[in-house]
């Protein structure tokens, strides 16, 4: 097995066990208000970091592709207009593709 396969299986089994543990724990265990709040904030911090990192990461250096950044910007506009999930990522992908096609760098 390659390292990538090992990582895929470990992460997948770990994610499944996380779900199973949550479903099996007594409700009181995770009921502490601060624990609940950390749990709610974890995806917020990580998702916003993921957005930024994926936009600027050029492999240990900063590299921004303006087509992608602009496309994601259009996605933000769709979010501000209260569009649903699918619309947001469809317009982001589509605008990135169109910009790249008509205004290649």
């Amino acid at each position, binding site marked *: 097995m390659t390292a990538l396969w090992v990582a895929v299986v470990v992460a997948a089994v770990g*994610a499944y066990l996380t779900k*199973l543990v*949550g479903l099996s724990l007594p409700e009181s265990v*995770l009921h502490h208000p601060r624990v609940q709040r950390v749990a709610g904030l*974890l*995806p917020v*911090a990580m998702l916003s970091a993921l957005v930024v*990192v994926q936009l*600027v990461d050029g492999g240990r250096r900063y590299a921004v592709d303006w087509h*992608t950044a602009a496309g994601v910007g259009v996605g933000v506009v769709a979010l501000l207009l209260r569009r649903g999930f699918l619309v947001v990522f469809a317009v982001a992908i589509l605008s990135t593709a169109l910009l790249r096609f008509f205004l290649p760098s």
Partner: protein
Amino acid sequence: MTDLPERRAIHRAAVGIGLYAGAFGLTFGAVSVGSGLSLGQTLTLSLLMFTGASQFAFVGVVAAGGSPLAAVAPALLLGLRNAFYGVGLAPVLRPRGLRRLATAHLVIDETTAMSLAQPQPRARRYAFWATGLALFPLWLVGTLVGALLGQAVDLSAYGLDAAGPAVFLALLWPGLRTRLARLVAVGGAAVGFVLVPLVPAGVPVIAAALVAVVAGMLAPIVPHPPAQPAGAPS
């Protein structure tokens, strides 16, 4: 399961969520093979991991050239929220024995949001299963089609590199209702940004998680409405 008045509305919503999952899965499949995962690895993630944001985070680290093991931690940390969904769902679903193993697999954003949106317990159980059973197969089929497409043509030219950030943004958005959450989002983004050139791929996102831990433990507790699952389809 007779005379459940909400049944038709639940079916309609479940089919809608299933279709969205198909499209979302298609994007995931294409992004995943574009990131260097094989068809088998891509399908394994959708089949076994089965939690979209974690899957996108995992392949994102691989695409950035990080070591595969560095991709594990962000995926698992993002998947932690499913444990908290499970705690909320357990009294509703009351899973027992072997059934618990199947139930656990379907505990994700969409099934939790659909289930807890129902007014009464029976409808909550029904919505959980209807959503899960519509979503899971379509997520897999979408992944397969996307991965095959991604293997056939180089999709990066078609703007697919915007998919990851757009997915994360759309999942993040509903979580930004409180001021504390917005501060944590800014803090997490800043930590991630600063660390990009300094540490291996995957680590900036793990470091950003510390912002949530510190803010969650230190900020004063103020009463506010209960958190909604991230990425609840609107």
